[in-house]
């Protein structure tokens, strides 16, 4: 989880660098190469040892891809439609955290202890405050 935490935090920082270099008009082109970088790492990790994909792997892997693209696309559309960033970002971040936690507990029947529940509430709150900037 530490690797996931650190690398996930570094991943989006490129957009900040892009903006600082006044290249943010190339955001969609940036995303193509951002996903290409991810694809190269994924190919390396995959290793081509077993080329047989199960039906579930194809369905779920592709669904995650569309989820990732859809999230970015619809956030962009919401901002373009006049929803201010200080409303759009806390809602998309906090909302997705809340829904996934809810799905984990109610749908997947995960057991979360009192410290975990407190962490969830404070964590969602922290990201909402962070998105408000």
């Amino acid at each position, binding site marked *: *989880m530490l*690797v*996931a935490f650190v*690398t*996930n935090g*570094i*991943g*989006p920082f*490129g957009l*900040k660098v*892009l903006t600082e270099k006044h*290249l943010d008009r190339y955001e969609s*082109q*940036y995303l193509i*190469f*951002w*996903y290409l*970088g991810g*694809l190269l*790492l*994924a190919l390396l*990790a*995959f290793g081509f040892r077993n080329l047989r*994909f199960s039906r579930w*792997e*194809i369905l*779920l*892997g592709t669904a*995650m*891809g*569309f*989820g*990732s*693209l*859809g*999230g970015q696309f*619809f*956030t962009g*559309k*919401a*901002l373009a*439609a*006049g*929803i201010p960033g200080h409303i*759009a970002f806390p809602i998309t971040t906090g909302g997705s*955290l809340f*829904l*996934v*936690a809810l*799905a*984990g507990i109610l*749908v997947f029947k995960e057991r979360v202890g009192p*410290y975990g529940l407190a*962490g*969830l509430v*404070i*964590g969602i709150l*922290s990201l909402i405050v*962070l998105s408000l*900037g």
Partner: protein
Amino acid sequence: MQAEVLVHSGNVYMVLAVLSFSSIGAVAKLADLKNSRPSTINLLLYLSSFLVLVVVALVSHSAASPQIVKLLALPFGVCSALAILALQTALRYGNISTSWLAINLSAGIPTVGSILLYHERLNLRKSCALLLIVVALALLWKDKKMEGTPSR
């Protein structure tokens, strides 16, 4: 009237964005339950996204960009794929509810990076948020530790 319609459609887009982002976490858990290989899921995620963006760029004739944009995007994309791969692997040993939160709390890293590298001002809200992130991570760590402690 037109502005009202625009904001209304913005709300719909926002709900769709929440559902899209949430689907990544929920589907990652489902993939784990279906014994999917993390490396395969990661490969298909990035392959499908990349192909969709390439098709869109080709159709809209908007693929051209300076070399620096490409060089900048690649390593950050690698980091992101490593994160998804690590999360998918970690799900075998933990909950999606707390793992998804932990990975999202890393949103504090770009904030710290912006403060350190670009000397962005650290206001009261950001300070509170970063402090809360540390508290949340400590609570999640404590929860994980308690999980491993046998009950008497």
